[in-house]
């Protein structure tokens, strides 16, 4: 289902001295609240940042007025194709394969043949199309590049609101991707589109059901692990449970860089704790201390209580980064179970598999 939503609030949540620009967006729309639940998401069609499009045109030696054909199949000015039709901010293995086939680049070979995949993953995460155009200058003309780029796909964000607590509203938590890997600032297409959207403007949003990541029954104790913007669905969870008067206890693990500048929704969590909507809050701020602390460390520090919650029937929901966080958290949960049961690792693995089968261990990672 698609709704035309009006942006009512675009509010930065991180303090002025933060190294991050994380934003809370509130969209207004009419009706249909019964169709979605906390844990669901919305998708929208992004556009590439105009700065990225201009840089691409420079690198291609093009004016942007050239009529070319992009993934839509229609003849359009190059500038519009780069803006709306092709992925510029994310690259994928097939593009590297195509470039390799064209010019047998030795660096690409080592990336593509790397067995562990780590070097490739790192390369993909730290490069954009513009970097490849620079590295392979003159290899392809503009139409040649267009033929090898992916169509610009929709992006999905978890909802950060509850239809019950925030009727008529859809809240999103958006971390603006603005990275520098030594080749100038790299912007994310979706996050910059949202972060720069003016209040009062409208955006077409499609509700994306996420049936595997909905609240358990009201009386089930719930452990939520959501560092970074992974906290978004849990804001909806907690608001929904408070609005329903749910009786189950809830324990939230949050992580960010600093307590003072990056504590997303700090005042709301303080209120939820005071009002009983949240039973326990464990925090990991990676840049506040001498050593980096992450949510998995907080789980291990409180392994006894963590296991006790599981024995009392708690469900675990994890949301956020898939590449490292989800694995580290998984390992920490296994360790907490191993310590709690006093048995070996295999037994802990079995215990967690059982939780998974019972739907008590759910992950929404990306």
């Amino acid at each position, binding site marked *: 289902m698609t709704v035309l939503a009006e942006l009512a609030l675009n509010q930065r*949540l991180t303090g*002025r001295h933060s190294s991050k620009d994380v934003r*809370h967006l509130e969209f207004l729309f009419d009706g249909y609240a019964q169709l979605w639940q906390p844990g669901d998401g919305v998708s929208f069609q992004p556009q590439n940042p105009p700065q990225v499009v201009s840089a691409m045109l420079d690198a291609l030696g093009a004016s942007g007025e050239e009529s070319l054909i992009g993934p839509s199949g229609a003849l359009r000015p190059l500038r519009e194709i780069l803006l709306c039709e092709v992925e510029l901010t994310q690259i994928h293995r097939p593009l590297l394969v195509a470039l390799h086939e064209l010019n047998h680049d030795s660096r690409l070979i080592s990336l593509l043949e790397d067995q562990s995949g780590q070097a490739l993953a790192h390369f993909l995460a730290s490069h954009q199309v513009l970097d490849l155009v620079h590295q392979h200058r003159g290899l392809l003309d503009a139409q040649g590049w267009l033929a090898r780029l992916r169509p610009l796909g929709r992006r999905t964000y978890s909802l950060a609101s509850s239809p019950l607590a925030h009727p008529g509203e859809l809240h999103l938590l958006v971390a603006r991707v603005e990275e520098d890997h030594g080749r100038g600032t790299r912007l994310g297409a979706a996050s910059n589109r949202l972060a720069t959207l003016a209040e009062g403007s409208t955006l077409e949003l499609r509700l994306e059901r996420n049936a595997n990541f909905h609240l358990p029954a009201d009386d089930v104790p719930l452990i939520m692990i959501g560092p970074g913007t992974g906290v978004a669905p849990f804001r909806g969870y907690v608001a929904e449970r408070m609005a329903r008067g749910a009786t189950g206890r809830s324990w939230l693990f949050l992580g960010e860089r600093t307590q*003072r*500048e990056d504590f997303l929704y700090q*005042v709301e969590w303080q209120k939820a704790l005071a009002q009983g909507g949240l039973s326990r809050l464990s925090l990991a701020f990676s840049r506040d201390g001498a050593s980096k602390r992450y949510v998995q460390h907080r789980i291990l520090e409180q392994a006894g209580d963590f296991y006790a919650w599981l024995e009392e029937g708690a469900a675990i929901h994890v949301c956020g980064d898939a590449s490292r966080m989800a694995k580290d958290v998984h390992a920490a949960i296994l360790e907490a179970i191993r310590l709690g049961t006093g048995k070996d690792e295999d037994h802990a693995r079995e215990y967690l598999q059982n939780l998974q089968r019972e739907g008590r261990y759910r992950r929404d990672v990306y």
Partner: protein
Amino acid sequence: MNDKTLSPVEGIKSRSRHLRGTILESLTDEITGAMREDDTQLIKFHGLYQQDDRDLRAERRQQRLEPAWQFMIRARVPAGRCTAAQWLAMDAIAREHANGTLRLTTRQAFQFHGIVKRDLKASIAAINAALLDTLAACGDVNRNVMGTTLANPAAIRPAIDAVCGSLSDHLTPRTRAYREIWLDEEPVVNTAEDLDPIYGETYLPRKFKIGVAVPPDNDIDVFSQDLGYIAIVEDGRLAGFNVTVGGGLGMSHGEFSTFPRAGDAIGFCTPEQALEVAVAVITAQRDHGDRSNRKHARLKYTIETLGLAAFKAEVEARLGWQLSPARPWQFTHNGDRRGWQEEPEGVSHFTVFLASGRVQDRPGRTALAGLRAIAEADVCEFHLTPNQNVVLANIPREARAKVESLLALHGLAETSISPVRSLALACVGLPTCGLAMAESERYLEDFVSQIEVLQARHGLVETPVTLRITGCPNGCARPYLAEIALVGKAPGRYSVYLGAAFDGSRLNAPWAESLSEPEILDALEPLFATYARERLCAEPFGDFVVRTGVVPAITSGPAFADTARALAAARATRPIGDGPAAVILEET
């Protein structure tokens, strides 16, 4: 007073197990950068104030972040005497944990601003490692003991230091909570061991201030102290002290039961008796002070309630002997000496001027780096002055050239600062102080420049005048003992007080309410003009405005309150929009 309800802070103190409260739990709570509410009162006794960056308040509310909580730490330095090594330690804390500046207070102490909760323990441990501490730097106890900087004759300085040191040591709370919380000492098994013979379970009703002045210098504003000692020097040696009681400057706007009060001399004691007198005065205040209303709890109100004679009798009853009559004294100097001072033996001192006591690096004037370099040279002592400057003291002849070159290198050598600028004081105010209603430290230099322009127009540039600005009426920069004082009422608006004695022996009087800067300058201009024309020989501005009837001579705290009441009444009946807001009072 026992029939009245105790103020809530009294409950917090008595439940605190000798100032422990739940400070340890508050420190480890990561969910907030603040302390628990009761603990915010108790940490004052440990030398801390919880504050927030008020410049960020509105924006952080929108960011759904709590206020930018941070702490002020105050380190006690009895009489402001500090070694080069101690200075270096304070400098390091300022750069590592605080906002990169040091602030010297009007009570000769160090203040650090902008320290976040998780850095408190390391900061306080570092202060203690430098053999200073923060215990009782704030709170309802005796605060940092003040003493005249480089008293004369030089031969009595050790005796003055000894008195200041013994008062400070003996009047420090006995609780071991401080060392348990901040220095990781083993908790005492039974907190009854902390029993404090002077302070008891609930400490004093309110803060308590002691200062030792050595005439002719009244740099410490002895009449602002709850308990003051005026040194009497006879035949070149310290004969003893006149004792003053009941000074205190805090008040509240529009509450005429509150007022500043100048201390009264009640007698004379010998140096050996000074501590005994302090204990008698403090315990009398402990037992008779008002614990129901914190705005009426200072010693000055106890004395107004009991009467000075009765209070003196109470003190003497506790002593078991009578004070001898006060001896004659004369103060002729206020503020700090400027520039270089020479001692006969080739030793010299240099006063480094610091606007509002702020030690910081600015283009062309790198006070923090410069004083660090001088401390590293390890050739002098650092004496924090009551007027928020630092004296590089006891520089031997052979080290003077080195100090001079470092002063010049860091832009600290100038001695051409105008008298009004060198005497001017301001409290910290915005953005860190929670009480401030208007700018103070951040405004002082601008305002002084305006006054300098006014003075220049009337040929008064070389005439010293005491000028002080505070952001609220609580009196941190001793405003009511200034010849001209601005006390914040609202952003950009100040109540103006005139006519204190230059030597600090008489309070000023409320003169005008809630003026903007142009209104203040317009109102002062004609006074400066007549002062330039009609002043008597060497007559200070404060005395002039009293003699010519601009303001009444304030001879008591209640008289100050009466003048404030009359001013408020006159303002209330003034037609709106009728001329300038200044209401100039006829002598009452």
